[in-house]
């Protein structure tokens, strides 16, 4: 029996006013003309609830770029879903925020690129930082949960303590410190983003002491970079086990990056129900369970914990989506990750990186 998914990630648009160098969107972005309609999303949210899903994460691109966001939140709320808006905050005047909260918005997750104005704008490829600081005060006045999200990497980890103190002043309920993960645009810029081992060790020590200091006031969650892990992450909680993602064009994917795997075809919510997609569609069954696993995963005692790691990362680094995730120290291709860690570029190289484009 396949368990029901826990959450739906709705990537409602790829349009975005920011150009972050570590964006997790695919390199091939969907344009406005490819986006599915309001009615399509409303139907999907009802089907999501019927499938036992509790949480809806509205993301993009920048979800505020969709003019019908209020209708989408209203429909999701009416369907019984808990709604989380993952946003850069660009395009959110107070009156619009008020209308989204009225429609049933539960949680706002606001991304910051840095604590300092100049480097933040440089990572985002646009002037957004000062606006976000002002907006966070406005958000705090509304009855919604507030999370500050901070992506960390080689270029900003040396002032992590300052960034945590900055986040503290914004008074969120929760701070998410996420190390850049190397898919999409971040993989293109990997050499410039990859932290050193020393940076990572300092980071873990700083986060632990901040967690103790801020306990009960601001919860801190830290997503560690898997390139430095001993064993791979249980990507998405296992393929087709907990999460499903719908892209702007209505394609249902088991994770953000699955579109890179050649030979996969993803069914669309315009043609199929979410339940059929989850239980029957070939894409969600492709790497579900253990049948697909090669050695050393197949006989590994950790196979039910990490599910062989990430299929997209296996493909991106080895060319074979069925290989053991190379971040695993037991993987025959682990040297690829060791090399990537060592070739983290000196900071001068940062001038040549690739900004995310717009569809």
């Amino acid at each position, binding site marked *: 029996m396949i368990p029901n998914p826990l959450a739906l990630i709705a990537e409602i648009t790829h349009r975005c006013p920011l150009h972050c160098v570590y964006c997790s969107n695919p390199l091939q972005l969907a344009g406005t003309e490819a986006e599915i309609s309001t009615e399509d999303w409303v139907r999907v949210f009802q089907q999501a609830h019927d499938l036992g899903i*509790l*949480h809806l994460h509205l993301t993009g691109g920048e979800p505020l770029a969709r003019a019908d966001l209020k209708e989408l939140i209203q429909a999701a709320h009416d369907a019984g879903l*808990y709604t989380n808006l993952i946003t850069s905050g660009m395009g959110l005047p107070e009156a619009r925020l008020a209308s989204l909260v009225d429609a049933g918005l539960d949680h706002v997750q606001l991304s910051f690129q840095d604590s300092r104005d100049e480097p933040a704008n440089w990572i985002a490829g646009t002037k957004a930082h000062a606006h976000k600081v002002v907006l966070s005060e406005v958000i705090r006045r509304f*009855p919604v*949960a507030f999370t500050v999200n901070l992506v960390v990497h080689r270029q900003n980890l040396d002032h992590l303590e300052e960034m945590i103190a900055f986040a503290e002043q914004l008074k969120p*309920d929760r701070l998410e410190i996420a190390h850049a993960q190397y898919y999409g645009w971040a993989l293109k810029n990997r050499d410039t983003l990859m932290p050193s081992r020393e940076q990572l060790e300092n980071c873990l020590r700083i986060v632990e002491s901040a967690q103790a200091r801020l306990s009960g006031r601001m919860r801190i969650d830290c997503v560690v970079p898997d390139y430095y892990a001993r064993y791979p992450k249980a990507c998405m909680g296992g393929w087709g086990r907990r999460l499903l993602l719908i892209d702007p064009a209505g394609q249902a994917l088991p994770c953000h990056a699955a579109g890179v795997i050649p030979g996969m075809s993803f069914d669309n919510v315009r043609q199929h129900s979410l339940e059929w997609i989850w239980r029957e569609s070939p894409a969600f069954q492709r790497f579900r369970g253990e049948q697909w696993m090669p050695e050393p995963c197949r006989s590994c005692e950790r196979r039910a914990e990490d599910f062989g790691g990430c299929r997209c990362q296996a493909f991106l680094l080895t060319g074979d989506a069925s290989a053991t995730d190379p971040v695993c120290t037991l993987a025959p291709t682990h040297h690829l990750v060791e090399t990537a860690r060592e070739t983290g570029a000196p900071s001068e190289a940062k001038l040549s990186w690739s900004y995310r484009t717009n569809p």
Partner: protein
Amino acid sequence: MAPPADSSQPRFAAGCRWGTQGEERVVLFPEGMIRVQGTGQKILELCDGGRTVQEIVKALSATYSGGNPSRIREDVGSFLEALQQKRIVDY
């Protein structure tokens, strides 16, 4: 943060609320949910931001006749403190 005082008025933290999963009542919050049953559910249902901890204990003592009020006060305090740490409850 300190445990709740007798005069504290506990309530859900911003963005935390009841939801349903099938027939079951659950508490929803950013990135997660918890199933609360029995006494835990009773306590949370009384946390409306108006009632004080003292009043909640009194109401529970009436429901559980024979319950020891100081024991109930202790349980309510530690239950709410644990949820406050998770940023699910404020008081």
